[in-house]
């Protein structure tokens, strides 16, 4: 049965040093607030998994929480590089970051494979690229019917899967809609799961492209409005595209990054405080 808790409790109980965790979201419904709380609680040695690590992963890496990243595309979409990620990979700042990289198709296969309880999945992929030469986790298998060679990737073996969704009900059922990405697979791939929701409702209203996760596969639900900011929750918020641009120069300069994290993440106790802290900064000034 689903537990309900605060974000701080959910992270404290579920995310441990050395865990392999995914905070997923494909542009939409990215659990920024959970990443911030992991930083506040000072987790170390995490293996971070995500198809599209973006700003929140840059923050986790820059703050020294991660020792490994498993991913397929690491950038600040529409804005530039992940400078903290680059500093870690190019110059081991603040510490070395092991990387294991895949294609999106490979990572999506790994999520579906894990959700399916299989040890590996197959795809037409990776052939002719240098990716298999830099990881042990891309191999090739032969079709037992046609003799064709296909790429194989292993299940993800996640300790914790963290996502945002729009709603939960009082029984702990979760509903999300819009771009659903690999949100369902992240919960179904993980031993423990945390779902941040915009609100808890009495009853779901059916939605186009609605995905419902029944309570008995959901670990912990946290009511956390704007938990995806600057990402968005369809029908609750718009993507703060300007924040992604705003972040670029901050992330580029490690001292400025640390000062910003100190003021807005370490210096706040909850996501509401984090959101409120932005009101008083250059970010809101720039927004006008």
């Amino acid at each position: 049965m689903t537990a309900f808790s605060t974000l701080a409790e959910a992270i404290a109980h579920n995310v441990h040093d050395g865990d392999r965790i995914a905070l997923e979201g494909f542009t939409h419904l990215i659990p920024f607030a959970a990443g911030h709380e992991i930083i506040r609680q000072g987790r170390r040695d995490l293996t971070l998994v995500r198809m599209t690590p973006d700003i929140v992963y840059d923050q986790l890496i820059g703050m020294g929480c991660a020792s490994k990243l498993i991913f397929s595309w690491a950038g600040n979409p529409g804005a530039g590089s992940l400078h903290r990620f680059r500093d870690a990979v190019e110059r081991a700042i603040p510490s070395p970051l092991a990387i294991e990289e895949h294609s999106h198709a490979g990572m999506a296969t790994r999520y579906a494979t894990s959700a399916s309880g299989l040890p590996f999945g197959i795809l037409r992929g990776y052939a002719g690229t240098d990716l298999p030469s830099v990881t042990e986790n891309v191999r090739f298998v032969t079709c037992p019917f046609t003799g064709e060679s296909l790429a194989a990737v292993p299940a993800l073996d996640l300790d914790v899967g963290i996502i945002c969704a729009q709603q939960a009900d009082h029984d702990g059922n979760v509903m999300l809609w819009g771009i659903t990405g690999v949100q369902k697979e992240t919960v179904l791939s993980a031993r423990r799961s945390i779902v941040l929701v915009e609100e808890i409702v009495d009853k779901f209203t059916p939605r186009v492209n609605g995905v419902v996760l029944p309570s008995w596969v959901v670990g912990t639900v946290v009511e956390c409005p704007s938990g995806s900011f600057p990402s968005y929750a369809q029908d609750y918020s718009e993507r703060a595209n300007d924040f992604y641009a705003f972040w670029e120069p901050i992330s580029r300069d490690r001292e400025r990054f640390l000062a910003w994290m100190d003021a807005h993440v370490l210096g706040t106790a909850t996501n509401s405080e984090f959101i409120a802290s932005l009101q008083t900064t250059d970010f809101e000034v720039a927004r006008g």
Partner: protein
Amino acid sequence: MANTTIDDVTWTSDEMMAVAAARELSDGTVCFVGIGLPSTAANLARTTHAPHVVLIYESGCIGAKPDRIPPSIGDGVLSVTADAVVGVPEIFAYWLQAGRIDVGFLGAAQVDRWGNINTTVVGDYGAPKVRLPGAGGAPEIAASCSRVIITLRHNERALVEKIDFVTSLGHGDGNGERERLGLRGHGPQAIITDLGVLRYDDTHRQFVLSEVHHGVSVDEVRAATGWNLVVADSVHETAVPTSEELRALRSFTGT
């Protein structure tokens, strides 16, 4: 970005590149679109000469019809205007891998004369000079779409003799590597840059310069290319952007 002006109409070289890319899409083409110039070009095609072009975004949006260029591949405007929204595992398995896509647009940090693409790393993988974002959807877009169009700005650091890492396979070594590996798409067919258009030539087994944009000389393109560029027997000049194309383009990009 250089500006060009004819008869009081001015455009940038990036706009020329977007217009040339858009023209590659005939009406009804099913197109797998990445963010940035590919998304701009595909939407330009959709709002000008190819109203029934089908835009597919890797976030799971099939048949998206955005009224502005989204800054990411997962914007709400894509899902609410799409014919269907599916999960990310499905978009790669049922739609891309199954060979249902006609054209894939790809960018590149480095590309070689065979259209092999690097978006992973500049320098040595283990000790990179510049760590790039990585593969994203590109390796399987390059493998599975019927044809691939590459767009990038033209300079010697981008169009190189040898790429540092093969993120996405083009024509490999030019000697049938795609076929040997069982890839089902035909691979990159055009490289569209801010200077001109290179097309894959089966006789030369490499990309050859086929078009130059207005005001660009063949020698300029040669000088900006990191390999010994083969030039087609007849290189023609790209038709300049029409005012309709520029108007549509700028209404999207807000410029």
